[in-house]
């Protein structure tokens, strides 16, 4: 197992280097003079030259890339052109906000998706099965930014049940410790704020969870259907075990591997989807951070934001791969 992890980490090195190169190229590949494009048409010659020196654009590209890599190893993610702050300092609260939203969405998607899939398989061809699978089919094709807008309109504007923007009550702000507000409010014993924070999570969380939920439900159903036909399930039923335990204990344990794969794959979709969801719900996460940076042509932030999200994506995939071995001892790594 340890050898496998080591091997995977080694394989990761060229991918990570390649990712840094792609991100490095974002500024350099801008057609024409990048400094001119970033500053706009009205920029003075001096300002353009100053920016070129600051971004190192006056150096040959390999020197630039080498400097960029060394900076990254020292934790230097560049400096935001808009706020003139180091991106490495700024980015943490945004990352935490995205992490909290993504985690909430995964929890919703897994709980509802897996259970819907199980019940669909258990009562195959029942009305629940048909309904769940039609919803799942639509869910897979749902543009989440549209779903987000409809949620905002229905639950925020028409019914006024839930807040539609931000992650806390503006007049009653959470004092951040970890920047994971659910955790922070519990640590501080501010349960009034915890309720507010959870309410803010609901709409963006559901929007973000929809596609993974649909895919997880479909995968769980087909995987469960396969397992339910096995001999050991028949044995378990024959010895008189309650159907509930047969399904949730014996069958689920054996059906969960392909579902885990799908959950792992969905994490990437989730991180990508976070950009759209966060834009709609003004959620101050990394996606929103990148979106704002694009509006202001704040290239260092665009670069580092994309790099950080891609890094998280790669790490999550590695983590999921390793997790398989723990869940299913039948998987052998060499």
């Amino acid at each position, binding site marked *: 197992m340890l050898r496998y992890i080591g091997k995977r980490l080694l394989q990761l090195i060229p991918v990570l280097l390649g990712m840094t190169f792609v991100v490095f190229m974002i500024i350099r590949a801008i057609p024409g003079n990048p400094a001119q494009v970033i500053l706009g048409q009205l920029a003075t010659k001096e300002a353009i030259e100053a920016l070129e020196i600051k971004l190192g654009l006056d150096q040959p590209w390999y020197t630039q890339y080498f400097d960029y890599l060394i900076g990254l190893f020292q934790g230097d993610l560049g400096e935001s052109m808009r706020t003139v702050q180091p991106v490495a300092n700024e980015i943490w609260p945004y990352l935490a906000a995205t992490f909290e939203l993504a985690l909430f969405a995964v929890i919703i998607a897994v709980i509802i998706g897996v259970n819907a899939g199980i019940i669909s398989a258990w009562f195959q061809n029942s009305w629940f099965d048909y309904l769940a699978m039609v919803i799942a089919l639509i869910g897979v094709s749902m543009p989440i930014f549209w779903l987000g807008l*409809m949620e905002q309109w229905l639950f925020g504007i028409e019914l006024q049940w839930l807040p539609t923007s931000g992650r806390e009550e503006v007049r009653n702000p959470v004092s951040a410790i970890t920047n994971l507000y659910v955790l922070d409010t519990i640590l501080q014993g501010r349960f009034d704020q915890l309720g507010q924070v959870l309410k803010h999570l609901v709409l963006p969380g559901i929007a973000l969870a929809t596609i993974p939920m649909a895919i997880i439900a479909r995968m769980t159903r087909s995987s469960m259907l396969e397992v339910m036909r096995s001999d050991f399930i028949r044995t378990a039923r024959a010895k008189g075990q309650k159907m509930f335990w047969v399904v949730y204990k014996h069958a689920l344990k054996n059906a969960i591997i392909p579902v885990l794969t799908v959950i792992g794959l969905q994490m990437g979709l989730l991180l990508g989807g976070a950009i759209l969801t966060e834009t709609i719900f003004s959620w101050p996460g990394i996606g929103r951070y*990148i979106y704002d940076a694009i509006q202001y042509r704040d290239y260092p932030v665009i670069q580092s934001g994309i790099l950080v999200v891609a890094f998280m*994506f790669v790490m999550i995939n590695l983590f999921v791969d390793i997790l398989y071995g723990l869940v299913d001892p039948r998987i052998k790594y060499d």
Partner: protein
Amino acid sequence: MTQMVPNSTNEIMAKKDTSTGPWRDAWRSFSKNKVALVGAGIVLFFILLAIFGPFLAPQGINEQAIKDHRLLPPSSQFWFGTDDLGRDIFSRVIHGARISLGVGFFSVVGSVVVGSILGIVAGYYGKWIDTIISRIFDIMLAFPSILLAIAVVSVLGPSLRNALIAIAIINIPNFGRLIRSKVLSIKEEEYITSAKAIGMKDLRILFSHILPNSLAPVIVAGTLAIASAIIEAAALGFLGLGAQAPAPEWGKMLADARVVLRNAPWTMVFPGIAIMLTVLGFNLMGDGLRDALDPRMKN
């Protein structure tokens, strides 16, 4: 001469039924799959809309009437209501079909062409070329796709054309890998060895044997890729990185609708339904094609 011509329609029918072949089998299996046919029907509807839409739309896409009918709810005159500039949303949604289907289709064609070339080169020649191309694919797949598209657009500048290019680029590794694995498996077949033995040139082997045999999985993956390309194009449009005003692109229309959401929810409903239906159609059709063309890929 006359013997060659079938005597009656019955004879033609009989002939049709007995003939076999992978494509005919696939069609028979596809046409029995009701869900897939619904998907194909939806796709066909939107393709017709994209072709004839501009003749059907009751109004132009940019006929503004801010004074007279700004933000009118759906009515018999304006079926889907009007937007904040007094434009008929029904007409704009119809015109939008051409943009979305165009971006979906052409971006996928682009990724298929480039991906196929890279995949064939990597799979057929192997060695260091394969290593380099495969590593590049790995790196591209290490990014969440919409993020890579945003990166490409932030370099090229926001426009519909650049969004199309970005979406084409992010899908290249998917097709590249698919073709590469196909080439690797076909390369080992005996008929390729015999083709080599009789002195057939590499290029001819590629085009007359390997490419036709890789067609089925590419058609399946391509259909499903059009679905995700349409969503990605709409997402880029929604973020202001794709189609620009006044183009009636569905994602851009949703972005405009966001501003007037409180007063005019209908501006948001119909472009969204259009996106969802189109994507649903391609997904259903793609699933059906997969079952028909490549039974091994079935879940």
